[in-house]
C-alpha cells in the first residue's frame, strides 16, 4: 500500500511537469507573459432584451427580496432587477501579451445537487484543475466527449470528488447519463483575461495592457457577441452588451 501511495505521488509530480511544459509551448505561440503595472480594466453588464425580463418587483418583503432572477428557460436566467443575463462568458481572445497565467490552487467546484450541475457555466484558464462533486444521495455520472483534452466518464456516488485538469482551450459539455437533462459547461481559455457574468449580468476583467481589443461574449443558448474595446492605462472602461 505504501509503495502504491508513493507511486501515486510520483505520478502527480510527473503529470504536473507535463502540464507546465504543455502550457509553456502554447504560451510561446500565442501569448507572452509580461509585467502589467499600469493596466486598465473593463467593467460591464450583459443584458437580455427579451422583454419578459423586467416584471414587477415585489418590494413589500423589505430586504428579503426572494429570488431576484427569473428563468426564461433553464438556460436563460435573467435578473428581474436590471435585465442582466447570468452565466455569460466574456473574454479577450486576441490579446497577445499580458499578465501571468496563474492556475488557482483552490480548484473551482462544480457540484451536482438535485440533479443539476451548479454552477452551470465555469470558465477556466488552461491547466486549471476543476473539482466535480456529487452532493446528491444517488448515483450520477460525469461525462465529457472531447478529443484533445482527454475525455472522461466516471460514475460518482454520494460525496465523490473527481478532480480533472484541462490542458487545451475548448468549450466542453459535461453531462450526466443517468439524468439526461442535466449538464454544465466548462469553457477553457488560453489567456487569463475572462470572466463569467453574475446573476445581475455583471463582469469585470482587470490588469489589461492599454490597447484595442475584441471582447468576445458567449452564451450557451443565445450565441456569440463581439465588441471592440479600447483600454487606457489605469482607467476603467465601461461596456454594455445586449442580446436582443
Amino acid at each position, binding site marked *: 500500500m505504501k509503495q502504491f501511495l508513493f507511486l501515486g505521488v510520483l505520478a502527480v509530480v510527473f503529470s504536473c511537469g507535463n502540464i507546465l511544459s504543455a502550457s509553456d509551448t502554447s504560451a510561446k505561440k500565442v501569448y507572452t507573459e509580461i509585467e502589467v503595472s499600469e493596466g486598465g480594466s473593463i467593467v460591464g453588464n450583459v443584458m437580455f432584451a427579451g422583454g419578459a425580463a423586467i416584471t414587477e418587483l415585489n418590494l413589500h418583503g423589505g430586504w428579503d427580496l426572494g429570488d431576484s432572477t427569473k428563468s426564461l428557460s433553464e438556460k436563460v436566467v435573467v435578473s428581474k432587477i436590471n435585465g442582466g443575463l447570468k452565466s455569460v462568458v466574456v473574454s479577450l481572445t486576441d490579446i497577445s501579451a499580458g499578465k501571468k497565467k496563474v492556475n488557482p490552487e483552490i480548484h473551482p467546484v462544480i457540484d451536482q445537487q438535485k440533479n443539476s450541475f451548479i454552477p452551470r457555466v465555469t470558465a477556466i484558464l488552461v491547466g486549471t484543475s476543476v473539482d466535480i462533486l456529487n452532493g446528491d444521495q444517488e*448515483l450520477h455520472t460525469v461525462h465529457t*466527449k472531447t*478529443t*484533445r483534452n*482527454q475525455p*472522461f*466518464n466516471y*460514475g460518482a456516488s454520494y460525496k465523490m470528488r473527481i478532480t480533472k485538469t484541462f490542458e487545451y482551450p475548448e468549450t466542453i459539455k459535461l453531462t450526466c*447519463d*443517468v439524468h439526461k437533462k442535466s449538464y454544465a459547461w466548462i469553457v477553457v481559455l488560453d489567456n487569463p483575461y475572462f470572466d463569467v457574468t453574475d446573476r445581475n449580468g455583471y463582469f469585470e476583467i482587470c490588469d489589461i495592457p492599454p490597447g484595442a481589443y475584441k471582447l468576445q461574449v458567449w452564451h450557451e443558448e443565445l450565441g456569440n457577441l463581439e465588441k471592440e474595446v479600447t483600454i487606457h492605462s489605469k482607467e476603467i472602461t465601461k461596456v454594455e452588451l445586449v442580446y436582443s
Partner: protein
Amino acid sequence: MKPKVLLSRVGLWSAMSVTSAALMITLAPLTARAVSIPTEVTEEGKKTYSNYCAPCHGDEGKGDGSLARSLLPKPRDFTRGAYKFRTTPSGSLPTDQDIYKTISYGVPNSTMIPWDILTEQQRASVIPVLKSFSEAFEVRKPDAAVGVGLETRPSEKTLAEGKKIYEEKLECWKCHGVEGRGDGPSASEQEDDFGFPIKPFDFTTGKFKGGNSSTDVYLRFTTGLNGTPMPSFAKELTDEQRWSLTHYVLSLIKPEECPHK
C-alpha cells in the same frame, strides 16, 4: 434472490470460469507478445485495412463504409480515438495490445467478427492505420493500465456484497436493471458519443462484448467503455469489492435463456 440460488450460480460460474480459463489458454497464442506491432503505417497495413476493414469502418476511419448504413451498433468511428475495450483508465487511448485483442476476438453481438482469418502479422499491421485516423494519438499517449488485484474466491458473502454494490452503492440497476436485463429506468434514453442509440448491456445473455472472463468484466466497469454512457467506476471501491461486484454481475447470467451457452 435466495442465497441458495445464488450459490448454485456460483457453482455454475466457477465451471464457466474454468472453461473460460481453458479458452484463454487455447487462445493465448493470439495475444502472444511475439507479434510485433509496427509503429508506422506500412503498405501491408493499408492494404489489409482497405480490403477487410474499410467496407464497414470507411476509407478514412469515420465508421461510414458502404456496409455501415444498415448496421447497428455502428462500426466504430476511429476519428475520436474513443475505444470501448481497454485496460487503460476512463478517456485514455487504448494500448496497442488492447486493439490487437479486440481485432482478434471480435465484438460479440455485433457484425465485428473475430479476425482470425487474417494472420497475426496482418492484424498487427492495421493497428497503426487505425491510430492514424485520429489526432488524439498525436496529442495524447495511453495512460498506464489499471491495476487488477488477485481474484478473490466467490462465496455467499462476496455475492451478497456485490449485490449490495450493484443495487445500493453504485446503482448499476439504474441502467442495467435490477435483474441485469438492460432495462433500468435510465436505459431507454441512452445514446453514445456519436449520437446513436445504445442499450445498457443485458447481463442475462452472457455474451459480453468485451470478453466473458472475470478479468474482462472487472476491467469493463473499472475503465468504462469510452464513447458510451457506460462510466468508469475507478474512483470507487477497493479491489476486493471490485471482485465481489464482478462475481455478482456474472451471477446474473441466465444460461437457460441463451440457446448457445
